[in-house]
């Protein structure tokens, strides 16, 4: 009977028409917000709705605080949220005078929950509605404490679509949050565990999430004291590596809750690091080489689960860190490539992947196995740290992720009998072959197939700058086909201009327009060629933002849409929208318009409470809009992507 399982069941059982507002307990007839408790009773008593908590002798938080509009645009219907009020902080605040990490303070809570309620809640009632900005003023020591505490709370299932900041405003019963190891604490915990129900633990979890949220809102430094019990296991990579949930199983309670979710998670591929999970972020941050500032003030709530944009001012910090820190050992070639990513000097899936593979080749060539270490393991660790460096410069692209995966598999397969030199040369040749076969030769094949689809008199539209599409158009022109090109561009990156320059230099007739005119220009267009960052298992095309719009308009005008993409970029995951996974770019890039100094309306946007700028990098085009995908294996319909993944990845790539 774990609250994790119960919460999941409970969530599925919730009838959206009878949403619970506020908190209801199974027995209670009138909840604080006067909601119908009948729905609460519909759920079996042992699988209550997630927000059920027992009543407690306390000063009720003003009912107004409980009502809140359901979270907009949440992919999964979730219980209604109140404005982010983190009650945990109140406790923390109470404890602050006692010291940032003080078992005594904890003891107050851990000892007898009900009594602590009385004490804390009165203060809480005074504090009332704490707005996020006020919360942001709480200092880092408090955050540390929350982090300490948080590691004992229920794990945040990464698969949940719920946002973590919203929290239950009611006081929640505190199960044993005890920093002390020790048998008597364990016993006490277990006792407390019995007293709290799944729902209560769930409610607590959510409140603690809010606490972490609030704590995160404060200063950027996330140097929480490494909790003594936390086992620093293998490196945790952000984004790319599919790792199971943090396995620092210290407490039974946590373990109990973790187990069913872990089991379930073992079947599903491990999700990426969700950035609203403070625990994981803090852990990753400790390992990160570059400081990450999360400017939560300017954060768009809908995208808070994604890594926030890292401005190139990090350059400074990077240099210092790199030069000063001895344990870094980032190979200079990789460092250079990372800098190029950071400044967006190298863009595009293929370019980034090739640059990374080149850098890794250098790294392997200069690598020597330290004494007493196994080459494959040490090398894997080194690769991990380099990859984590690269991903802090800029989140990894899917093409890079696949290349890394294949490379690590190759490392893992190295036979022990090889000498170091042989192993190194085999790895270097693997990297070379990968780049040659999967990218360069694949591009040639794609061009060969694609030019058969361009006929004289065609008007070909493309969006942004895809290197493969450029190759296709160049080759078609060079073999004498008579056609003209429409280049559709979009702010803020205006990558289409690079393509335009290149095509004009070759003598192609081009039309240049921005995305706002795509519906107009589409009347003249006969074919659309687009590139992709990746194609997902359900045929969804993950590409530069604006691609989906162009494809949709083309579909509306019954113009065929051809996606040119190498198979190494295909990915097994499925994405239904552009929100759950994306990359956030620099919001300040939207402020100015190049060459038009008079557009100053958005200057000073960060001072406004109500304005947020969102600069997305990618979007997802549904498979319905795609007529065909041109790969090195030929032209396939979008429904055949899983077939290619199945047939050509029977063994791991290469």
């Amino acid at each position, binding site marked *: 009977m774990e609250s994790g399982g119960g919460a999941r069941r409970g969530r599925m059982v919730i009838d959206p028409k009878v949403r619970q507002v506020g908190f209801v307990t199974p027995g209670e007839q009138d909840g604080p917000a006067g909601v119908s408790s009948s729905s609460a009773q519909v759920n079996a008593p042992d699988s209550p709705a997630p927000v059920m908590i027992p009543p407690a002798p306390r000063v009720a938080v003003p009912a107004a605080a409980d009502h809140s509009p359901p979270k907009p645009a949440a992919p999964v219907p979730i219980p209604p949220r109140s404005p982010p009020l983190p009650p945990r902080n109140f406790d923390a605040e109470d404890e602050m005078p006692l010291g940032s990490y003080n078992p005594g303070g904890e003891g107050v809570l851990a000892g007898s929950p009900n009594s602590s309620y009385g004490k804390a809640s009165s203060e809480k009632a005074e504090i009332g509605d704490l707005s996020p900005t006020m919360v942001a003023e709480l200092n880092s020591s408090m955050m540390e404490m929350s982090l300490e505490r948080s590691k004992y709370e229920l794990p945040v299932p990464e698969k949940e679509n719920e946002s973590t900041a919203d929290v239950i405003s009611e006081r929640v019963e505190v199960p044993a949050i005890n920093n002390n190891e020790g048998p008597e604490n364990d016993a006490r915990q277990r006792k407390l565990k019995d007293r709290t129900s799944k729902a209560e633990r769930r409610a607590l979890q959510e409140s603690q999430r809010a606490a972490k949220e609030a704590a995160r809102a404060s200063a950027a430094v996330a140097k929480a004291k490494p909790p003594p019990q936390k086992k620093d296991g293998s490196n945790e990579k952000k984004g790319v590596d599919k790792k199971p949930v943090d396995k620092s199983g210290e407490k039974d309670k946590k373990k109990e809750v973790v187990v069913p979710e872990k089991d379930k998670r073992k079947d599903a591929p491990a999700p990426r690091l969700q950035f609203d999970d403070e625990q994981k972020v803090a852990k990753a941050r400790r390992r990160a080489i570059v400081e990450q500032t999360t400017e939560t003030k300017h954060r768009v709530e809908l995208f808070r689960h994604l890594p926030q944009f890292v401005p190139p001012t990090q350059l400074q910090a990077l240099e210092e860190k790199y030069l000063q820190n001895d344990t870094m050992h980032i190979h200079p070639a990789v460092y250079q490539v990372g800098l190029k990513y950071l400044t967006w000097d190298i863009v595009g899936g293929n370019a980034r992947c090739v640059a990374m593979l080149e850098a890794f080749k250098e790294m392997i060539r200069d690598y020597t196995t330290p004494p007493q270490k196994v080459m494959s393991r040490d090398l894997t660790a080194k690769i991990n740290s380099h990859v984590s460096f690269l991903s802090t410069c800029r989140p990894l692209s899917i093409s890079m992720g696949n290349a890394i995966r294949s490379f690590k598999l190759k490392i893992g397969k190295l036979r022990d009998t090889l000498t170091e030199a042989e192993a190194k040369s085999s790895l270097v040749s693997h990297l070379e072959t990968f780049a040659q076969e999967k990218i360069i030769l694949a591009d040639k094949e794609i061009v060969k197939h694609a030019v058969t689809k361009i006929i004289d008199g065609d008007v070909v539209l493309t969006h942004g700058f895809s290197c493969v599409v450029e190759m296709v158009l160049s080759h078609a022109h060079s073999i004498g086909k008579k056609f003209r090109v429409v280049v559709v561009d979009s702010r803020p990156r205006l990558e289409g201009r690079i393509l335009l320059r290149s095509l004009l230099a070759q003598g192609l007739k081009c039309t240049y327009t921005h995305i706002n005119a795509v519906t107009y220009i589409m009347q003249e267009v006969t074919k659309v060629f687009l590139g992709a960052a990746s194609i997902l298992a359900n045929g969804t095309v993950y590409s530069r933002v604006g691609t989906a719009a162009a494809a949709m308009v083309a579909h509306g005008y019954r113009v065929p849409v051809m996606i040119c993409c190498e198979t190494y970029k295909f990915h097994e995951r499925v994405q239904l929208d552009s929100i759950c996974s994306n990359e956030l770019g620099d919001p300040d890039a939207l402020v100015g318009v190049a060459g038009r100094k008079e557009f100053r309306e958005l200057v000073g946007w960060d001072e406004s409470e109500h304005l947020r700028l969102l600069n997305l990098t990618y979007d997802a085009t549904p498979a319905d809009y795609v007529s065909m995908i041109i790969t090195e294996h030929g*032209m396939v*319909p979008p429904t*055949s992507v899983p077939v290619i993944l199945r047939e050509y990845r029977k063994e791991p790539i290469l």
Partner: protein
Amino acid sequence: MEEEEQVIGDFNRWRQRPELAEAVAAIKALTAVIQRSQASTMMGLEIELKNASEMLKAWDRSSISLSAGCDLFMRYVTRTSALEYEDINAGKSRLIERGERFGDISLKARETIALLGQDFVQDGCCILVHGSSRVVLALLKLAANNGKNFTVIVTEGGPKKTGMEVSKKLSAAGIPVTVIVDSAVAYTMDRVDMVLVGADGVVESGGIINVIGTFQVALIAHSMKRPFYVAAESFKFARLYPLDQQDLSISTGQEESSNPARDYTPPHYLTLLFTDLGVLTPSAVSDELIQLYL
């Protein structure tokens, strides 16, 4: 040259059997090429096969099933570990075995399809048939022999009036037939329960190439929500991917766009394909092709 004559001779001999599909005749002829081959290496044998295949394809450039059948035969036969055999004779016999097996499958394809497809014919249903396909005829005859009561409406199929032949054959099998003009398809679609056509070729997207008028019937069936079934053997799967009708004429070399003989029906309008590999959805066609051309 002698070899060429032999291949064509074989081909024509097989084609004399009217029930045989062209592609099957070609496959049989190609299998005979392997048997006759004097090559001393596998590569040499492959080259001979390739030349023979080209010759057969040249015999009728506009036949998609012929070229698809030849290509598939080449793939099927050469895609075997026999090529690694050092002993040419062992390799040859393996290839012959595969070739014969492919020939048998193709020959029996029609029966397999009839068996699978006749399940979809229900008592009292009304089927619209367009074009003259021997597979469709076999399917309907089998259904009638199994005691199902149904009626068939056949389009005239002008200007060659091929529909009349079809209706004669169906009547001979004891099936009640009505012939309608091509323009009356929309008018009749209300009364129809399902549409059944054959195919000249099945393309990579899952769409079909068939006699002119098929696309029209498919559009009407789709808009009036009637299932549209295609009966096609697997050797008709071609590695073509037309985007539209114009693209089709380019890839098959069809010159007459003012009086086309064939049209392309996109997969969106097809419900299911009855093939000897099973009853497939249009997306599965690409799956099969990828597996074969791996």
